[in-house]
């Protein structure tokens, strides 16, 4: 039951971040709900596009917040250097693989929860979305966001293994930007573009699952997780 114990520790570290992430998503939804949307088919597509952009933004924010390595992360106080208790963690009879795997899994569950909650709220609070998409498409869209978000999520997980807590968010933002730029300026097939899969290639607009991008995202997540594992296994804290 060591995973449970480690997950409990992780939960105590991240619960306020998750709450903040949910509050951020909720504020988006409330803002969207208060917008008076003009009726008529001409407004349908841009409005839907704006809703999707907002959902993506809220999701990416959750992803940036959720990533973590094996070092202690004092809740919400980004710190420079390792917290002294990291040595206590490392002195326990547990492998660094297990420490990282439990922490990364917990963060992933939290981001999946935050994305699902944001999608749900958008669906109920934003009538134009209900008018243009079916519930099934919205569920599919949430799945796409979570899967495509997994590739992005592995970036802060990797960064957290060697960056101080106070630089992780900024580092993740820069890395997301770089990945977005690369996605649009490299000969990578459009179907593998995970940012496109969350937007115009998503089930809400393209009415099909972006399988290639989802597979690419999972592959990216696996590679980055493996890299993070190598860092924590070789790093001397």
């Amino acid at each position, binding site marked *: *039951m*060591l995973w*449970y*114990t480690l997950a*409990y*520790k992780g939960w*105590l*570290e991240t619960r306020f971040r998750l709450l903040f992430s949910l509050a951020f998503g909720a504020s988006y939804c409330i803002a969207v709900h208060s917008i008076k949307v003009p009726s008529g088919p001409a407004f349908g597509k841009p409005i839907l596009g704006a809703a999707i952009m907002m959902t993506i933004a809220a999701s990416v924010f959750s992803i940036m917040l959720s990533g973590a390595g094996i070092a*202690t992360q*004092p*809740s919400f106080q980004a710190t420079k250097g390792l*917290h*002294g*208790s990291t*040595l*206590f963690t*490392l*002195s*326990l*009879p*547990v*492998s*660094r693989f297990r420490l990282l795997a439990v922490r990364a899994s917990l963060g992933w569950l939290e981001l999946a929860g935050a994305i699902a909650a944001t999608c749900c709220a958008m669906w109920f609070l934003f009538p134009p979305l209900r008018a243009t998409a079916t519930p099934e498409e919205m569920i599919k869209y949430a799945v796409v966001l979570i899967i495509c978000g997994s590739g992005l999520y592995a970036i802060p997980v990797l960064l957290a293994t060697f960056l101080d807590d106070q630089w992780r968010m900024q580092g993740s933002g820069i890395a997301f930007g770089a990945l977005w730029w690369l996605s649009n300026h490299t000969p990578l097939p459009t179907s593998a573009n995970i940012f496109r899969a969350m937007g115009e290639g998503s089930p809400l607009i393209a009415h099909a699952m972006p399988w290639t991008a989802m597979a690419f995202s999972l592959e990216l997540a696996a590679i980055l997780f493996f890299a993070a594992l190598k860092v924590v*296994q070789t790093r*001397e*804290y």
Partner: protein
Amino acid sequence: MSDYIIETNQLWKSFKGQPALRGLDLRVPAGSIFGFLGRNGAGKTTTIKTLMGLLRADGGTARVFGTSVTDTDGTLEKRAIEVRRRIGFVTEDKELYPYMTVEQIIRFTRPFFPKWRDDLEQRYLKMFELPPKKKIPDLSKGMRSKLMLLLAISRGAELLILDEPTDGLDPAATEDVLRELVAIAASSGTTMFFSSHQLSEVELIADHIGIIEQGKMIVAGSLDDMKAQYQRLQVVFTNSVEMPSRWVGGVEHVRQEGRVVSILASHNVDAIVEQARALPGTAVERFPVTLKEIFLEHVRSN
């Protein structure tokens, strides 16, 4: 199996080309209370981290419970986990998770150690007057030291590695803790390897001593033997001071104040006394030395 719980041979470790351990030879006998002394930056914490398998040595060997904790074949972590399961550890800075309460950190630590002793946990909770519901940042440094000791002792460990265990404790609490450590060592045969700057405390409970300086062990052995070997001689000259051109072997340090010459001898004391008495107009007295004197003499001369 070796009689030593901890054994290192020519252990080397560098950080960015800067050597922290330079061929450290350390032997900690099973069941002993071993005081590991050294100045700040001498290599104590690096040694402890290497023994815990948290750092990879650059050269030499290190064994804990007979298990190698140096990385020779890429399986260090697996071996280190087995070793850590049998060790109780108190870190130097006494930092624990700031978002946990006393009872939460106990609940968190317990499952990692199959031999966890509930009776000891309850005993020390009561004895150290640790409030279970209090958050760790709200505890004083002394209370955090006590909590770390509880977490280390309750593991049912065969070896306690304690880095400055009484740091932050008041004199009364220090005495309680030291008494408990001795009682644990006596009742369960637990080996204790502890570093401290409080030499009087070390002298009170340790039966073996090792002094590390610049990553090398400069003195090691039984404290009783050490105290029997080391003596301070006071030579009082009635007239002018006439020192010999060369003292016999065993003289570690000579200090002169007026007509009084103080000599620290590490061995060969009788011969030194004889040589001093042969000098014109001298009275020689022998005094036992404290651990502090031995420590200071060695680190200064290095």
